């Protein structure tokens, strides 16, 4: 294991965050705060409790997931896409590093950043609504596994993308709708039966449900189901990455 290389990539990526502090940390915090003000305070005051949880508090886990998912994807996809774009990838390709080490560096840094961000948003949320976390360890577990899974997913997108549009299209047209329709702002039981069925096809729904359970002990689906869907997606991403590395897809000529 070339751990110096993993450390070098990790450090490099974390330094990039520092340089782009505003974009990486501050702007998601601002946009999340806006959600709290609009949905939590303004609209939420008209909605009473959902499953015994105040509306402002109810949306917290979903909003954290929204940031966690989009940031994991964009951090990891940018991280590996950028060297391809500037040409500095030559160094990575000629270095004595295995694919796994490259992956550890990029995905590790991307996941770290999005977890930090999620914790910052959690702290921000605390300003707006009273929060209690019923199962803090499970909460952290969901946070970490989701961050890793979606950073992997972002890494795949970054390798696949050969222009900036492709880089942004998946987070924009796939992830954001899935999070919004995955029960961030409502309980699935509030939907008509047909839409309840549709929601069950949305993998992000299980994530949010599980994550919300770790806060309030209430969930739309059982914890086991959430857990299985997450593991399934993680396994899918790992398989895809393995295949990409085996085939050298779009990196080497």
């Amino acid at each position, binding site marked *: 294991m070339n751990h110096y*290389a993993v450390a070098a990539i990790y450090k490099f990526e974390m330094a990039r965050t520092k340089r782009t502090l505003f974009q990486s940390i501050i702007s998601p915090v601002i946009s999340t705060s806006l959600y709290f003000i609009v949905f939590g305070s303004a609209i939420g005051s008209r909605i009473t409790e959902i499953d015994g949880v105040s509306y402002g508090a109810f949306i917290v886990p979903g909003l954290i997931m929204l940031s966690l998912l989009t940031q994991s994807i964009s951090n990891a996809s940018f991280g590996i896409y950028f060297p391809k774009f500037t040409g500095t990838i*030559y160094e990575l390709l000629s270095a004595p*590093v295995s694919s796994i080490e490259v992956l550890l560096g990029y995905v590790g840094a991307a996941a770290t950043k999005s977890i930090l961000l999620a914790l910052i948003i959690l702290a921000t949320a605390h300003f707006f609504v009273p929060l209690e976390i019923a199962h803090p360890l499970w909460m952290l577990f969901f946070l970490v596994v989701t961050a890793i899974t979606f950073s992997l997913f972002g890494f795949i997108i970054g390798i696949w993308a050969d222009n900036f549009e492709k880089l942004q299209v998946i987070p924009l047209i796939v992830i954001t709708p899935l999070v919004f329709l995955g029960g961030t702002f409502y309980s699935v039981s509030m939907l008509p039966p047909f839409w309840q069925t549709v929601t069950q096809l949305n993998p992000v729904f299980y994530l949010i449900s599980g994550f919300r359970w770790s806060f309030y002990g209430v969930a739309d689906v059982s914890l086991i189901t959430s857990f299985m869907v997450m593991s399934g997606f993680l396994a899918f991403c790992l398989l895809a990455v393995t295949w990409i590395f085996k085939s050298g897809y779009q990196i080497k000529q």
Partner: protein
Amino acid sequence: MQPIIQITDVNKIYDSGFQALNDISLSIKPAEIFALLGPNGAGKTTLISTICGIVNASSGQITVDGKDIVSGYRHTRELIGLVPQELTTDAFETVWATVSFSRGLFGKKPNPTFIEKTLKSLSLWDKKDSRMMELSGGMKRRVMIAKALSHEPSILFLDEPTAGVDVELRKDMWQLVRQLRNDGVTIILTTHYIEEAEEIADRIGVIKNGQLILVEDKAALMNQLGKKQLILDLKEPLVAIPSTMTDFNLQIKNEGLQLIYSYDTTKEHTGISALLQQLSSANIGFKDIKTDQSSLEDIFVSLVKEST
């Protein structure tokens, strides 16, 4: 001596179907400076990229320090430093950070003293906290060299190192290259300038259309270069070289109307006046006299022409 790099029957066909390398076989000796000379598009960068692991060979085998570059990539890549042709840098990184990053990437423990020494040897020390985008092209090239040297490689590839480089950097670079070679580093550089190969290389390989058409010690090439010809247009055709002149390196050409004398300009006595004396005593008259010299340039041009 075991070659430090052994290339055997390497072919590269790009996805486009273009064959960039055609049956290349080449041995590089430890601690030599090898110049790969060839026109644009000859396949120099492709060959280097293949050895470094950036491009996959379509067939053939390459070993570095006795290890296969695919199965033994950890070992082979640790030994190699590469300064690519293109200046590709992280605009926002500082010089110090990017050079330290390279060292880590190549599996070496951090060593600020060594990085400092490297930066100083490339006159980059006062720029260590500058961001890459603030540097001039020449300075960026220096940083690329520092990155390649950051992990103390024993083989250094320089892909067109002097393209767009000012005289000063060029001088510094050759000094550094010689210094490295004296320290035991093997250096392979590509160029399409003959003078450059002449100036610095121990051996020269000529590549054209993906084929290696010549590999020769520079000394041997220079020897040919030192050879000059004296051409005498005779009044009467000569059937055979007179016995009194067999000591001279003479040839008869053009149906006996031309006598050609090859001599070495580097010798103290060229033998020209002795030959002329012999000619007059043998009563061989000539109408005209001229000299001809083949330069490395001529050799190169004729080679490159022949292979098309």
